[in-house]
């Protein structure tokens, strides 16, 4: 087991232990007692995992996407707009924060549920990116991936790469989930509850591995590390 102090020390020397450096960058800091996520996002990613890797974790030969990292991002904020006729609209805010220099975004989609069942009615939904002043309409994305049942996907790769994906720092992607009531019945307050639980989330595809971390030489590492005198003696050539 790697203790917290050791973990910090290991993370500071990714050149020496690139795997630990990569793993610890991604590991949660508050690990003890942490609850694993549940619900639809987890189900979605587990389905994606099973499609792309066998039970031992070996990547399958025929994978459904050409990326070696896929991140599911849940909305950081959501607002339900007042209903208008048969339309029920919700705005979702996704925080985009590239946390690695070597992350190359190759695909970005919004996964959503196209049909929401309520007790006496059901809603047909679609999603679109939402700028504050005007809605931006895009063509429907490619239906190439085998998605878990009951999920649809909207490809936003070009939009996110051109308008949202930050070179540095944080940006917010606004998405509207627009649902239309199919029957002329009273929905009541149930719609906001139905929209409040994981109706849509962002799925980002990257091409990167910890191998792509630029490796500095041992000498450079030691020069950057003021307390590296002891290590430096190890690096001296032996006569």
């Amino acid at each position, binding site marked *: 087991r790697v203790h917290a102090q050791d973990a910090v020390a290991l993370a500071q020397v990714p050149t020496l232990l690139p795997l630990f450096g990569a793993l610890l960058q*991604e590991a949660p800091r508050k690990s003890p007692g942490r609850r694993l996520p549940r619900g639809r996002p987890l189900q979605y990613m*587990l389905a994606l*995992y099973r499609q792309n890797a066998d039970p*031992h974790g070996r990547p399958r030969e025929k994978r459904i996407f050409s990326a070696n990292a896929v991140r599911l991002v849940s909305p950081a904020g959501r607002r339900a707009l007042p209903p208008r006729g048969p339309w029920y609209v919700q705005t979702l805010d996704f925080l985009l924060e590239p946390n690695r220099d070597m992350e190359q975004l190759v695909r970005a989609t919004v996964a959503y549920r196209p049909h929401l069942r309520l007790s006496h009615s059901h809603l047909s939904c679609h999603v679109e990116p939402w700028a504050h002043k005007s809605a931006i309409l895009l063509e429907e994305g490619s239906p190439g991936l085998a998605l878990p049942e009951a999920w649809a996907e909207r490809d936003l790769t070009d939009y996110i790469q051109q308008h949202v994906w930050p070179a540095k720092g944080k940006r917010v992607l606004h998405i509207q989930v627009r649902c239309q009531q199919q029957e002329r019945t009273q929905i009541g307050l149930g719609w906001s509850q139905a929209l409040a639980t994981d109706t849509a989330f962002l799925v980002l595809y990257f091409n990167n591995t910890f*191998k792509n971390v630029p490796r500095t030489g041992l000498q450079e590492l030691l020069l950057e590390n003021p307390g590296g005198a002891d290590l430096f003696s190890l690096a001296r050539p032996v006569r």
Partner: protein
Amino acid sequence: QVGPVSSEAPGQSLEQTQCSLHPFQVSFHQLGWENWIIAPHLYSPNYCKGTCPRVLHSGLHSPNHAIIQNLINELVDRSVPRPSCVPYKYTPISVLLIEASGSILYKEYEDMIAQSCTCR
């Protein structure tokens, strides 16, 4: 003048001692990573173990240097060790994990599973 290949430890067969791949499985729970790795539960890194023979057959994919080091050990200086039995090829592993931000990440890590061994 290279001698015949023989078992290194008396009483043990050549197959038992010669450099080869050994299956080994560990759980992420045993590594203390179960709090943030969702899948898979088990990890089979495997390992290489055994003695490198004096005559390195082609199946071991040994570099020329290993052959020379064997000769040095045999003919010149016993303090120079024989080549070591180490992994030759690896395969990646796919992991589903929880990031510090709470996002769920599918990621492939290269060179995580030893697939074959070599003497070098």
